């Protein structure tokens, strides 16, 4: 077999994202150690490796289960849509449950683990397996007393797998201060993958990291991954980087006056747009207008809502003359509403990827992304959003992110972290003057176009969104009041003047 090839060949796992991180898959004819704590997804990863091998690459596989019975295993992965029984009937998959119970075994004198070798060898030969999973072989250490025999036999086992050119996954429990409890990493020198399952503030996040991959480039970050009904998907894909194409096509924001501020034509297709503002300033309305306009052009639009239900949103939008129902009925407008705190941040973003892949939209709105920022420890958010933006740009999807600025803070400061990945940034802020609260919109930045620097009144009318006049003066007293209430608030940039004189452009 192919045990001694000079160049490093790779065997695709078929697991979404993992093959990208590893630049093509696991080392062919070698053993990969997958370690992680209990419940981190080792077994599922191993089983996916085999099932994809069978279904997608025509490579039969053997699963040696040291912990679960065949029945348990089949039930546990049935939720991922794998019919192990059928694969076994087809002679593509062999499952062998190895049961070792220390208390039931008496040991006396010399022995070896040839029985295990024979079982594995017989299963491999019967179906012509190319892939093998041993899950988790560490059970041997708990089940048998003579550790030196086990260690010698493990060394022999890994050599045996290699000699037969089998691409194998061996799983191991995460140990204290070591990758695996019994130091399996010292036998497996070629590739080590670490799975992690953390719970922070009651939210679980799963992460995967390629600790080691001899002779190959690989992504070194911790990648969040999702275990969903379609199996494991590792959240891509920093490898996209900045190589995506930039379109010169422009698309309308849905508000004619706003398009006017954006060098008359609107946003670039495939760009990322941030709409930030304080509560109740009309961010959702603006984003829904944007989506509806896309639908009117015959494009597919996808709305991720993290605060309101679809019904509530549709009802509220009808109050400003936005009738969304026809577009929902035509299946151009899609909603995906979920509370971000019900999932970990990474799981959440991973599920966003999946929905986007399924719906295949032209325009997307995420409303709002603030909840991500509050629902996680902050540091990871930017890299996650960067990956999401890269992913969207690669697919030439124009995306509008809304962001709720907190009343207390400086309007723009909270957004600094994410602004660098946004191409356009619209700011909505409410303004008090002459005993009336109104809302102002301005374009803080819009890459690649000569955008307006005006501050316009933002009006929600029965007939949709309109922009009013330019604030030229008259915010002075209002600003003073605001400044007294919240010292850090932004004052200077907002335009100043006397008493409420607003002129039309």
């Amino acid at each position, binding site marked *: 077999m192919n045990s001694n090839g000079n160049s490093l060949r790779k065997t695709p796992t078929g697991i979404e994202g993992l093959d990208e991180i590893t630049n093509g898959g696991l080392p062919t004819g070698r053993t990969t150690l997958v370690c992680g704590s209990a419940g981190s997804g080792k077994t599922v990863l191993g089983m996916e490796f085999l099932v994809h091998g069978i279904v997608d690459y025509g490579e039969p596989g053997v699963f040696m289960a040291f912990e679960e019975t065949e029945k348990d295993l089949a039930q546990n992965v049935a939720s991922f849509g794998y019919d192990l029984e059928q694969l076994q009937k087809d002679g593509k998959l062999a499952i062998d449950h190895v049961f*070792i119970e220390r208390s039931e*075994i008496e040991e*006396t*004198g010399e022995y070896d683990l040839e029985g*295990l070798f*024979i079982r594995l060898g017989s299963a491999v030969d019967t179906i012509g397996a190319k892939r093998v999973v041993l899950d988790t072989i560490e059970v*041997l250490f708990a089940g048998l007393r003579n550790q030196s025999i086990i260690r010698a036999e493990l060394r022999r086992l890994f050599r045996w797998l290699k000699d037969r050119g089998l691409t194998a996954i061996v799983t191991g429990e995460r140990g204290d201060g070591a990758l695996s409890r019994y130091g399996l990493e010292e036998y497996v020198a070629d590739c080590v993958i670490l799975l992690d399952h953390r719970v922070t503030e009651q939210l679980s996040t799963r992460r995967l990291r390629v600790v080691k991959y001899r002779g190959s480039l690989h992504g070194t970050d911790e990648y969040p991954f999702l275990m969903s009904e379609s199996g494991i998907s590792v959240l891509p894909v920093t490898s996209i980087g900045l190589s995506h194409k930039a379109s010169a096509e422009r698309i309308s924001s849905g508000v004619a006056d706003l398009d006017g501020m954006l060098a008359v034509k609107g946003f670039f297709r495939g760009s990322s747009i941030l709409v930030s503002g304080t509560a109740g300033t009309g961010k959702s309305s603006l984003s829904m207008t944007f989506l509806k306009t896309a639908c009117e052009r015959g494009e597919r639009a996808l709305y991720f809502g993290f605060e309101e239900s679809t019904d509530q949103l549709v009802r509220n939008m009808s109050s400003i003359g936005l009738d969304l129902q026809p577009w929902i009925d035509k299946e151009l407008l899609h909603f995906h509403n979920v509370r971000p705190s019900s999932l970990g941040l990474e799981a959440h973003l991973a599920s966003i990827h999946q929905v986007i892949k399924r719906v295949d939209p032209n325009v997307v709105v995420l409303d709002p992304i603030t909840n991500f920022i509050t629902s996680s420890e902050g540091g990871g958010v930017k890299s996650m959003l960067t990956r999401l933006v890269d992913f969207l740009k690669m697919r030439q999807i124009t995306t509008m992110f809304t962001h709720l600025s907190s009343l207390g803070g400086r309007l723009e400061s909270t957004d600094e972290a994410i602004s660098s990945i946004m191409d356009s940034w619209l700011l909505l802020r409410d303004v008090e003057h002459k005993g009336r609260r109104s809302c102002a919109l301005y374009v803080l930045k819009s890459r690649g176009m000569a955008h307006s620097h005006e501050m316009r009144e933002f009006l929600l009318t029965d007939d949709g969104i309109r922009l009013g006049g330019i604030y030229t003066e008259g915010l002075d007293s209002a600003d003073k009041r605001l400044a007294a209430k919240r010292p850090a608030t932004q004052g200077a940039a907002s335009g100043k003047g006397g008493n409420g004189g607003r002129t039309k452009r």
Partner: protein
Amino acid sequence: MGEQNAKQESGQEPQALWLLKLYVAGQTPKSIAAFANLKRICETHLKGQYQIEVVDLLVNPTLAKGDQIVAVPSLVRQLPPPVKKIIGDLASEERVLVGLDLRSAQAVQTGE
């Protein structure tokens, strides 16, 4: 021993029959030692009421799964129930006797 064969030493008494299966992988020094040790122990303690079946997994690899054989040599007591398992070349007679429930563990501890 190269193939599956059964040795039978039948006794006259209607006592419980001991059915012992010895799993080996070819004629290795360990398997030869295990068989010799087992035979000696049975002759001493179970004369006339035991039956040894030697299973060579190199010949019948699929039989390893049924009795959950991982290590060889493995001795499995099929009868009388419950099933008992002893792995190794059966060098220590005392341990084999304990493993087969022929002698209590306490007796072994004082004996060792």
